[in-house]
């Protein structure tokens, strides 16, 4: 499987993955999360686990089981960690722990390195086998920069039991532990969402949507969520439209865990009124090929968020050679090098201005699009993330020297 990335990912990453796998051959590498499908964590694990197995690592992926009550509680914890106000009763905390305890008896927790992804399975650390002390990492994918304090404090009893933690961006980290590492997430260039498509395939995939592909297309792919500022995107588009011909496509999927989604979607539809050049697409879940085709058909991609997690749609678009205009929040500034691979903006006016700049300079679109693709190739492909996980494991095992050679 690693060979499939030859000529796509940086060769050095593939070499280092191979070398580290030789050093760690036959060792047990366990990942635990709370869902087998859907979401970025599952997408990466689906690919990473078989790839590591092929290279001689005993990689395993386990998923904790829970009922609706459990996932309602963990959703509240998730929201509170992202800064929303939630109330969790003592009973809820006990149930959260109880479900993890039940899972601990079903999952073989013995391994040389264990990655526990996100808060849902975090209490499993209380059940780490005493006979076999592997290295336990808490891999947090969410933004903990402004958490609800009492919820975060409560989770500390688990957090403190881990040997190290891993966050996606520096400002997501808690800053309470001596061993906090920063490893950004990644995209898989071979997945349906990112694989190369021919012009014909793009046309065929998009034909049901009646989008004119012969006009400049501004695209934003995101949930219909106020933090993604879809109304701001429409305002920016209207500002641009005065002097520049273009169409706007807003594409998103319904989020079952977001009751506000429909309200926002209706607001967006109402605000778009009956502008025939605005296309609002509510795509079913797993519409990866459609999103891929839209990103490839777009002239400019926006991610005008006012609050964001990592915002991997930015890397997805850049991988397709598109210049991206993004809000300077969350993980977006890590992906967009301002004026090199796109523009970081702080206002609707800023977004409009940068769209106009691009539409009037095809050379700039080409230059920044190419720089963006290279930036993603170097920094945000799945092979880099696998390389980093293995490097971190090896570093922790071999005396934690700040410089070492393999």
């Amino acid at each position, binding site marked *: 499987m690693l060979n499939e990335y030859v000529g796509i990912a*940086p*060769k*050095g*990453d593939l*070499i*280092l993955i191979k*070398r580290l796998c030789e050093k760690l051959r036959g060792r047990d590498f366990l990942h635990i999360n709370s869902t087998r499908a859907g979401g970025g964590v599952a997408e990466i694990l689906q690919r990473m686990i078989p790839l590591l197995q092929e290279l001689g690592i005993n990689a395993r992926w386990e998923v904790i089981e829970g009922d609706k009550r459990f996932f309602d509680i963990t959703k509240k914890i998730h929201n509170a960690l992202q800064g929303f106000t939630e109330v969790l009763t003592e009973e809820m905390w006990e149930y959260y722990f109880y479900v993890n305890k039940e899972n601990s008896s079903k999952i073989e927790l013995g391994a040389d390195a264990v990655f526990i992804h996100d808060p849902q399975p975090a209490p499993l650390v209380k059940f780490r086998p005493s006979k076999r002390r592997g290295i336990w990492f808490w891999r947090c994918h969410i933004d903990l*920069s402004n958490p609800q304090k009492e919820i975060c404090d409560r989770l500390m009893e688990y957090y403190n039991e881990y040997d190290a933690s891993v*966050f996606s961006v*520096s*400002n997501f*980290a*808690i*800053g*309470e*532990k001596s*061993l*906090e*590492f*920063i*490893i950004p997430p990644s995209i898989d260039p071979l997945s349906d969402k990112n694989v190369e498509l021919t012009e014909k395939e793009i046309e065929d995939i998009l034909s049901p949507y009646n989008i004119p592909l012969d006009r400049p297309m501004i695209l934003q792919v995101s949930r219909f969520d106020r933090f993604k500022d879809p109304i701001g995107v429409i305002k920016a588009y209207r500002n641009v439209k005065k002097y520049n011909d273009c169409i706007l496509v807003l594409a998103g999927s319904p989020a079952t865990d977001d009751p506000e989604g429909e309200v926002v979607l209706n607001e967006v539809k109402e605000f778009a009124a009956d502008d025939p050049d605005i296309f609002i697409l509510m795509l079913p879940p797993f519409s990866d090929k459609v999103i891929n085709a839209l990103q490839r058909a777009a002239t400019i991609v926006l991610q005008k968020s006012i609050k964001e997690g990592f915002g991997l749609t930015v890397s997805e678009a850049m991988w397709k050679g598109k210049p991206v205009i993004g809000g*300077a*929040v*969350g993980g977006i*500034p890590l992906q967009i*090098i*301002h*004026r*090199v*691979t796109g523009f970081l903006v*702080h206002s609707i006016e800023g977004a409009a201005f940068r769209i106009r700049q691009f539409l009037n300079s095809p050379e700039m679109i080409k230059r920044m699009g190419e720089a963006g693709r290279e*930036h993603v190739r*170097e*920094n945000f492909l799945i092979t880099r993330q696998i*390389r*980093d996980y293995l*490097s*971190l494991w*090896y*570093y922790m095992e071999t005396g*934690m020297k*700040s*410089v*070492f*050679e*393999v």
Partner: protein
Amino acid sequence: MFEFKSCINIIKSTGKKAHTLQELREHLTTISDESIYHHVYEYFLKGHRLLFTNDFAQWVGDNLEDSVLSERLSNIDPYAFSTVSELRQEIINTIDNHLKESPLPREARPGEEFYFNESVTIIYPVGIRVRNLAEFLIAIQHIDRGCIYYHFYEARTRLGNTMDDFSMWIEYALHKKELADKIRAIDPFMHDIEGIRHRITNLVKEEVTKDMETV
């Protein structure tokens, strides 16, 4: 024989952050040498803009919007110092001198604070060895950016003599001092890694062509 190696960084958080220039300055007095090393010397391993030469200058320029201080911090040559302590003092002095004569810049917006990090560096051979300049010329055009960073930038601190691995090998193994001097004359701050690759390639190509034409 020249063996190409490459390196990567894993970022380690220190948990320290600054919202203002004063906070940045305060942390600079106590933060680890490893953190200063990371934010200055390892800047070139990142995809960076040529406007800046270290993370402190970039943050001051981009997020505090103090272009004068940003220029001054960018103009510090980290290879002019034999220890990180000396470099640290120079950065602090630059900020102090600036504060004496200029108004305080604004605070960073929420989410745009400066986060002090350190790094873990992993070095590994990439399986390419060359014996002469012609082989070197082919290799330099195809190796990863991490290789060029390791041999051209990282070497300057590793060897402690501000020289890079490429010119050292060319001078001492191939006895081509003139070419080595030309490589040493490339300004490391005014190019990104692709720019460095391009310049070294051109210099070596000229030399190989000259060698082939010599009778």
